[in-house]
């Protein structure tokens, strides 16, 4: 580990004796999950709770002629069957646009469709019954008469004149377009020694959280209050949206989020069926539970990455990359998702292409079109895998054109480590990155030269192995620039409250949420370190809008960098307050005292003075014994949001070593390496596991995962047997290394790490496959790299 103390040493807030910062410590509360004693929303039962099941459209685009539910309503256990019209008076429609994405348009979307359906899987009625089985039985005999219409499925023809317009009121199927032209792109291409270009094609895929989306909505008519139990990454966002569309004040909505069975961005949005569940609870005045089944998950959880991106690169013979140019096209389904919108991914692609490099000439166009497929929106590493695959694919093509090693061309173009602060051609501001240090570390970890020698030796035996390199940048710690400036009520600040309880332990309430990343752990590590108490005496509460400070939650790699800093600052205040009381009790001065090992000690020498347990006893039960005028405040709250930089960019580089079987087209992953720089490492193990998990999601996209639609917009592989995700048997071991460049925006110095793995994994795999296939003179710029695709490229089939 290369982490080094910050300059305030020896006694900065973080680097105190027995600090947990930078240490591998087990996450609290794992036993609950390992013993099957967690509480996921799918486990939850409430008195009088009924179950909702949705009747969903089998067509991608159709008019609803009639819904006949009278027979179904007579089925045992059925409480109600509710159509879109019946919810009109309960919940209002929404439009997924934000003002900072200029020109973005979308149509009003309803909780349950009225009159027409726009994708296969859109809900047309809800069946509410005493059990899910009873609801499913009744849903089977709800009869819906449709007039099927021609579906818009191919993004390439979505803007053609002959293509139906999905929302006539919008005029066309173009949701959003962004162009960018920086520097002298035409001159760069005109002066180039070589130009390479390709069309990069990405498979539409989805997050496949192992626990499907789940919600229990409980409208208490007597309290006029709605409690929403939901597996969400952003409880306060859900509170705001639910209140807005149900005509309630936020104070009338409580969102509770206990254990969440995987999220990855899938559970950061507001889905129509969740809105319908809130509304059904209000309409029927009882708790309603909706848990998506796996087919519904595939048909309604947001998809992502459905992009076709043409890219061009110009290069000089000395390896200097002189320009990038891209033209990105993406199909987002029939609606821009709410409230984060579906233009963000394409916008990110424009922002991020060429990001690791110093190239100043850059032209980009991105078009976002509507289509009659399930909605697309932000999934882990939004836009990064597209931008990274295009950039790194082009860099490899350029290297090949000029006969330069892929590592060497990167060395010659990556932004120098001493060039910061600086900005990318697209205007991204970089505080401090470490591309060259990361690349050097990667070379050492993977023993690059030895691998090249091995590759050459094996080629003689007709064994085709490849090395793929992918440098990347990653957006983390987003400020209000991401959503707030566009008018979304999505908080970019987070808050933490810490208090000493009556036995000298610490209760910590944080607005960041836990979905397994380790939010509770990193919070407890920071609080324990700054205060001077054992982690085991810090209890972290999250995921409850009635209990925690207001904040954004956990998404876009913000939990550690933003929520962690709020925890640090709150704990500093609590520490000062405790020392003030201790000084009064001990007739000492706060500056002469410190806290260590759960006790107030002498700052000089560390001799114990009073246990925190004893101090708390006096404060809470014998305040009469305190000196006059002392009013202890053993609770402190602080909030934090980055203000200097809109985002804390991180960087890293990945490498993949794999073997292609040119007879079967199968790819065997042999080894994967990642070096990344997320600033201060709070818990290196948790960071490494975020990276590994992220890499494997990227490997899934690279090799397996694709939502396959037919020409009528039917999703043909909406089950786990046909939609392939990575299994343990086919995944490689992944070595992770770090460079540490803390951000100066916070005292903690942490940036995010959640997207890094996913950002670059597919690019590394694709470059490695093409490296392996180099003797065959073929280049593939499409993922997933299925055996069929590879054999076709090799002209074997």
């Amino acid at each position, binding site marked *: 580990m290369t982490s080094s103390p910050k300059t305030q040493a020896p006694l900065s807030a973080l680097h105190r004796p027995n600090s947990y910062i930078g240490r591998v410590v*087990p*996450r609290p509360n*794992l*036993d*609950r*999950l*390992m*013993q*099957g*004693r*967690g*509480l*996921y929303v*799918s*486990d939850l039962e409430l008195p009088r709770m009924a179950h909702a099941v949705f009747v969903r459209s089998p067509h991608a685009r159709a008019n609803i002629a009639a819904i006949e539910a009278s027979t179904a309503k007579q089925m*045992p256990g059925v409480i109600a069957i509710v159509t879109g019209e019946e919810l009109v008076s309960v919940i209002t429609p929404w439009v997924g646009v934000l003002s900072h994405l200029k020109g973005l348009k979308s149509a009003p979307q309803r909780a349950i469709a009225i009159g027409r359906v726009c994708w296969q899987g859109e809900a047309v009625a809800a069946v509410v019954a005493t059990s899910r*089985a009873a609801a499913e039985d009744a849903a089977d005999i709800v009869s819906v008469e449709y007039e099927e219409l021609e579906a818009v499925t191919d993004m390439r023809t979505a803007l053609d004149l002959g293509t139906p317009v999905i929302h006539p009121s919008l005029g066309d199927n173009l949701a959003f377009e962004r162009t960018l032209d920086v520097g002298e792109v035409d001159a760069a291409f005109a002066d180039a020694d070589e130009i390479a270009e390709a069309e990069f094609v990405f498979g539409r895929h989805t*997050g*496949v*959280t*192992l*626990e*499907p989306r789940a919600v229990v909505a409980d409208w208490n008519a007597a309290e006029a209050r709605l409690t929403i139990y939901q597996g969400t990454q952003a409880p306060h966002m859900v509170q705001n949206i639910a209140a807005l569309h149900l005509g309630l004040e936020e104070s009338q909505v409580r969102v509770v989020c206990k*254990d*969440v*069975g*995987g*999220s*990855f961005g899938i559970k950061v949005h507001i889905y129509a069926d969740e809105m319908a569940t809130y509304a059904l609870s209000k309409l029927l005045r009882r708790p309603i539970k909706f848990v998506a*089944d*796996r087919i519904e998950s595939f048909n309604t959880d947001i998809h992502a990455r459905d992009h076709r991106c043409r890219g061009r690169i110009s290069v000089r013979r000395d390896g200097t990359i002189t320009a990038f140019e891209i033209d990105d096209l993406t199909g987002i389904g029939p609606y821009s998702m709410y409230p984060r919108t579906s233009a963000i991914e394409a916008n990110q692609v424009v922002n991020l292409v060429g990001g690791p490099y110093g190239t100043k000439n850059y032209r980009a166009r991105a078009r976002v079109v509507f289509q009659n497929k399930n909605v697309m929106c932000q999934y882990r590493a939004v836009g990064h895998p597209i931008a990274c695959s295009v950039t790194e694919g082009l860099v490899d093509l350029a290297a090949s054109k000029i006969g330069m090693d892929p590592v060497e061309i990167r060395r010659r173009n990556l932004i120098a480590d001493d060039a910061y602060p600086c900005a990318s051609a697209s205007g991204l501001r970089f505080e401090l990155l470490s591309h060259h240090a990361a690349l050097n570390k990667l070379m050492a970890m993977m023993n690059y030269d030895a691998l090249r020698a091995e590759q050459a030796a094996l080629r003689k035996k007709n064994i085709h192995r490849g090395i793929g390199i992918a440098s990347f940048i990653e957006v983390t710690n987003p400020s209000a620039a991401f959503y707030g400036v566009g008018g979304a009520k999505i908080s970019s600040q987070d808050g933490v409250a810490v208090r000493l309880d009556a036995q000298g332990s610490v209760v910590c309430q944080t607005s960041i949420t836990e*979905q*397994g*990343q*380790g939010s509770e752990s990193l919070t407890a590590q920071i609080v324990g370190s700054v205060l001077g108490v054992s982690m085991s005496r810090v209890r972290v509460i999250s995921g409850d809008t009635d209990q925690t400070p207001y904040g954004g939650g956990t998404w876009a790699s913000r939990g550690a960098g933003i929520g962690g800093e709020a925890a640090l600052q709150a704990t500093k205040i609590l520490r000062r307050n405790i020392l003030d009381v201790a000084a009064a009790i001990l007739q000492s001065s706060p500056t002469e005292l410190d806290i260590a090992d759960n006790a107030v000690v002498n700052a000089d020498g560390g001799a114990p003075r009073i246990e925190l347990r004893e101090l708390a006893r006096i404060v809470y039960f014998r305040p009469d014994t305190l000196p006059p005028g002392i009013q202890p405040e053993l609770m402190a709250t602080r909030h934090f949001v980055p203000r200097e930089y809109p985002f804390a960019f991180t960087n890293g580089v990945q490498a993949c070593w794999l073997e292609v079987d040119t007879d079967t087209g199968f790819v065997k992953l042999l080894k994967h390496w990642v070096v990344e720089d997320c600033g201060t490492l709070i818990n290196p*193990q*948790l960071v490494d*596991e975020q990276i*590994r*998990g*992220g*890499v*494997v*999601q990227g490997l899934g996209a690279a090799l397996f995962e694709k939502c396959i639609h037919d020409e009528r917009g039917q999703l043909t592989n909406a*089950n*786990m*047997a046909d939609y392939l*995700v*990575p*299994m*343990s*048997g*086919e*995944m490689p*071991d*992944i070595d992770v290394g770090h460079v540490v460049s803390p951000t100066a925006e916070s005292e903690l110095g942490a940036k995010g790490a959640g997207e890094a*793995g996913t950002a670059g994994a597919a690019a590394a795999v694709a470059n490695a496959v093409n490296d392996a296939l180099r003797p065959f003179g073929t280049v593939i710029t499409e993922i997933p790299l299925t055996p069929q695709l590879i054999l076709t490229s090799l002209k074997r089939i």
Partner: protein
Amino acid sequence: MTAPLPIFLRVNGERVEAQVLPRLNLADFLREQLKLTGTHVGCEHGVCGACTVRVDGEIVRSCLTLAVQTHGACVETIEGLSDSGEIADLQNAFRQRNALQCGFCTPGMLMAAQDLLKHEKEPDRARIREHLSGNYCRCTGYQAIIDAVEVTARVRRESKS
């Protein structure tokens, strides 16, 4: 609709008598009737492995097993394996190695891993990876899980030698 049938079985050592519809699967029976919610339902078609439990000593997909099939059987769930201490060492290895994130796959993963460790004393990493390939994890990337199982196998071997 077919009438409920009586079944008698042992679940985690306790005698259970219940009336179940013939179509009720074991996962729903455990979760909804016995409130043993540690058995998770991820795909409901036998692919993801989150619902893995033990029936008469063999691991099965409880979403593909009907409750009536367990009449007279001995069913063990993650709650039972945890309380008996049978997998305490494996759970500790998972904790130390952070071999779980969201934890939704973990009960099934522990079931499958314990099944391997019961039958094989020296599984190598490839063998562990193969055996756990029927249990999907979307969070960890698997490596930490493989590490934890490998460590547990070694510790168990060493403690017996």
